[in-house]
């Protein structure tokens, strides 16, 4: 490996041990504090699995039922704990099955290390059995990747992999190891990576940018904060809270930012974006200073950029310089880690209330409540709504549960209505929108935080994309609570077909199996609810269960999620029906 890592300290000359490459890999994982990894064995990774067998009292390997499940479980593990999630697979199809999870982790900045076996180095490029160019394939969706062909490379590459995955803006790293390198013996010693010369994890915060930002914030009459996952990834929740409370700024979240401060916090004005709340979307186009913190102005957040917050001065707190001015032109960019930059700006901020401006949010909330929220949470029609299921979960969890959602209508409802008291509690596939993410991610989340209640909310479509992970739940006795909100449709696509394709429901209707029977086939407690009268009791039973529990709720078939910003429309043209 040519890349220069920061020089090792000469004094700490460590003793070496004669090990095989495969044992070295396990020892590297242990040195990085890994105690759980998710994977699936196969030919090219068998030497490592043989070592995992020997080290099974120190490191727990979770056999998922598909390699995609291994990546999502590793993501769930990482998202709830802030630690690096680890997935392992064999070469060829094992490796390619990781790609969806890797792409998901890349776009959602999730720290993950994936290890793949590879055919022996003398076979590389020969179309050998189960050979695939996984380094080539994974390049556009990894923060970094590398192929190891010599055992002696393992310690430095593995140390670098973990350093890169977790530092700065986190992301996925893939390490591909040829089978001969796994067998080869070498003199092993391990030292953690302290830096890579070509890689600056966290850019320096410019003092002047802090002053300029503070000046804009202090003179703003109608400031709005939009925060994203950067607050959570930077563990800046307290600094963030101090900042918005001192400045008295109403604050809205992106889908990955939620739970950084409690749902009930008086300055929390809800979600921005396509299915976000009415007030923060409409008032994005009325604020005079927009303060973006650890978010990246995704198109699902901004709607049409040509009409997005044009009246506002924009301040962007951001760790990744490539995000600055990428989608929205900023007046002041504050580079750096949110934890440090928010702490640094606090003394420069004047105390403020913005009482009149905050009332504007209350007024618009009242409209949204009347037109949307009331009907979602307290429906008067016969059919069950997804919203009322969330309401029951809130009652039972008291906002303490981690909510893992899949992708689609139920995801939007879950994010809109779930109550969160604790950070790192909303685990969902935001950027990539990966159906099938929910169930395996919930496994990883529950295993990383066994003391927490983990509720997985899926639709009937996404659930069936990774339904085989019920086997993992059963085998691991992971006490995940699974709720399938079943409308017998790919609901979000159907909603678009209804609104934009004249109700031509092309391939969105699902003829579903007996989900309860399937869950019972995996020996899980399971129940189906079809009537409102049963709902509260069924949710209570699920939440009180000490074991995994499956609850299917048959909801209204053709309900839509509102508010909604149609594609290409302005955030202020958000529709309530």
């Amino acid at each position, binding site marked *: 490996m040519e890349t*220069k890592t920061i020089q090792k300290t000469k004094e700490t000359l460590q003793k070496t041990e004669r090990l095989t490459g495969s044992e070295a890999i396990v020892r590297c994982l242990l040195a990085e504090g890994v105690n759980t990894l998710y994977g699936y064995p196969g030919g090219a990774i068998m030497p490592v699995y043989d070592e995992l067998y020997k080290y099974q009292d120190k490191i727990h390997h979770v056999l998922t039922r598909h390699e995609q499940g291994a990546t999502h479980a590793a993501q769930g593990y990482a998202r709830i704990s802030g630690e690096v999630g680890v997935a392992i697979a064999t070469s060829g199809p094992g490796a390619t099955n990781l790609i969806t999870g890797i792409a998901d982790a890349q776009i959602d900045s999730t720290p993950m290390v994936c290890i793949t076996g590879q055919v022996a180095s003398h076979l590389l490029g020969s179309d050998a059995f189960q050979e695939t160019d996984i380094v080539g394939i994974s390049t*556009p969706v990894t923060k970094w990747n590398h192929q190891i062909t010599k055992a002696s490379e393992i310690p430095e590459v593995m140390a670098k992999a973990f350093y890169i995955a977790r530092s700065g803006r986190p992301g996925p790293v893939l390490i591909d190891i040829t089978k001969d390198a796994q067998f080869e013996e070498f003199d092993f010693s391990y030292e953690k990576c302290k830096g890579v*010369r070509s890689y*600056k994890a966290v850019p320096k915060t410019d003092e002047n940018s802090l002053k300029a930002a503070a000046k804009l914030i202090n003179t703003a009459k109608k400031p709005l904060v939009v925060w994203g996952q950067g607050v959570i990834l930077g563990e800046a929740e307290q600094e963030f809270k101090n900042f918005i409370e001192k400045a008295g700024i109403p604050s809205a979240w992106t889908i990955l930012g939620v739970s950084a401060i409690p749902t009930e916090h008086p300055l929390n004005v809800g979600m921005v974006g396509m299915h976000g709340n009415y007030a923060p979307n409409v008032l994005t186009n009325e604020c005079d200073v927009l303060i973006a913190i650890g978010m990246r102005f995704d198109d699902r957040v901004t709607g049409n950029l040509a009409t997005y917050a044009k009246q506002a001065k924009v301040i962007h707190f951001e760790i990744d310089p*490539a995000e600055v001015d990428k989608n929205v032109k900023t007046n002041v960019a504050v580079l750096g880690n949110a934890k440090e930059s928010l702490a640094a700006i606090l003394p420069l901020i004047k105390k403020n209330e913005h009482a009149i401006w905050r009332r504007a949010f209350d007024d618009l909330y009242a409209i949204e409540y009347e037109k949307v929220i009331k009907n979602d949470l307290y429906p008067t029609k016969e059919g069950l709504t997804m919203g009322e299921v969330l309401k029951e979960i809130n009652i039972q969890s008291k906002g303490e549960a981690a909510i893992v959602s899949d992708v689609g209508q139920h995801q939007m409802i879950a994010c809109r209505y779930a109550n969160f008291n604790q950070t790192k509690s909303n685990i969902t596939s935001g950027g990539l929108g990966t159906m099938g993410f929910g169930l395996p991610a919930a496994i990883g989340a529950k295993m990383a935080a066994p003391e927490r209640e983990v509720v997985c909310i899926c639709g009937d479509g996404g659930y069936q994309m990774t339904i085989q992970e019920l086997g993992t739940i059963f085998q691991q006795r992971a006490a995940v609570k699974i709720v399938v909100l079943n409308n017998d449709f790919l609901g979000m696509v159907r909603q678009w077909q209804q609104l934009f394709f004249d109700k031509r429901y092309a391939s969105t209707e699902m003829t579903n199996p007996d989900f309860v029977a399937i869950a019972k086939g995996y020996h899980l407690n399971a129940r189906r609810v079809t009537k409102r009268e049963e709902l509260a009791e069924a949710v209570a039973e699920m939440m009180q269960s000490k074991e995994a529990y499956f609850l299917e709720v048959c909801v209204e078939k053709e309900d839509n999620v509102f508010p909604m910003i149609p594609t290409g429309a302005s955030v202020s043209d958000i529709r309530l029906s």
Partner: protein
Amino acid sequence: MEKELKQFTVSVYTENNIGLLNRISAIFQRRHINIESINSSVSEIENVSKWTIVVNLTEERMKKIIGQIEKQVEVIKAYYHTETEIIYQESCIFKMKSDLLFDERQIQNIIKDSNARIVTVNKQFFVIEKSGRKEEIELLHRELSVFGIMQFTRSGRIAVSKEEMKISNILKTIDH
């Protein structure tokens, strides 16, 4: 409305690692941008590679792409320049039938006038080499193609900037 496309020469200083070409070219590919030419070589700094990439795009996109290139772990620094900000050369070679050298006297004048150079001559063919700016090479190509060219190859652009690229300073701050 489409904004004006300009030609930019990108200089990327990187570690010398397998797979980096893929990683950098993928950044252009995902935005559906064609790379006009690309050259990789050693740089003025030991163990640091330098890529010279020529692309046509708007300056706004260029800036965003530079950010995304620099974000790659093994990229040390990336710069973009317009043609007036750099000194550049491209190089090309022509293989032509040897008979032409004697039958078509004009060719010798073309070679002389264009400051091209005959690399080798044998009974079957002769090879001309020419380094220069893009337009000069295009002109020579036009003039020689009349006589029939057996083979033609042109190199990617190589360039140095008129202004200093503060790459060594960056490395110093990282190394210590």
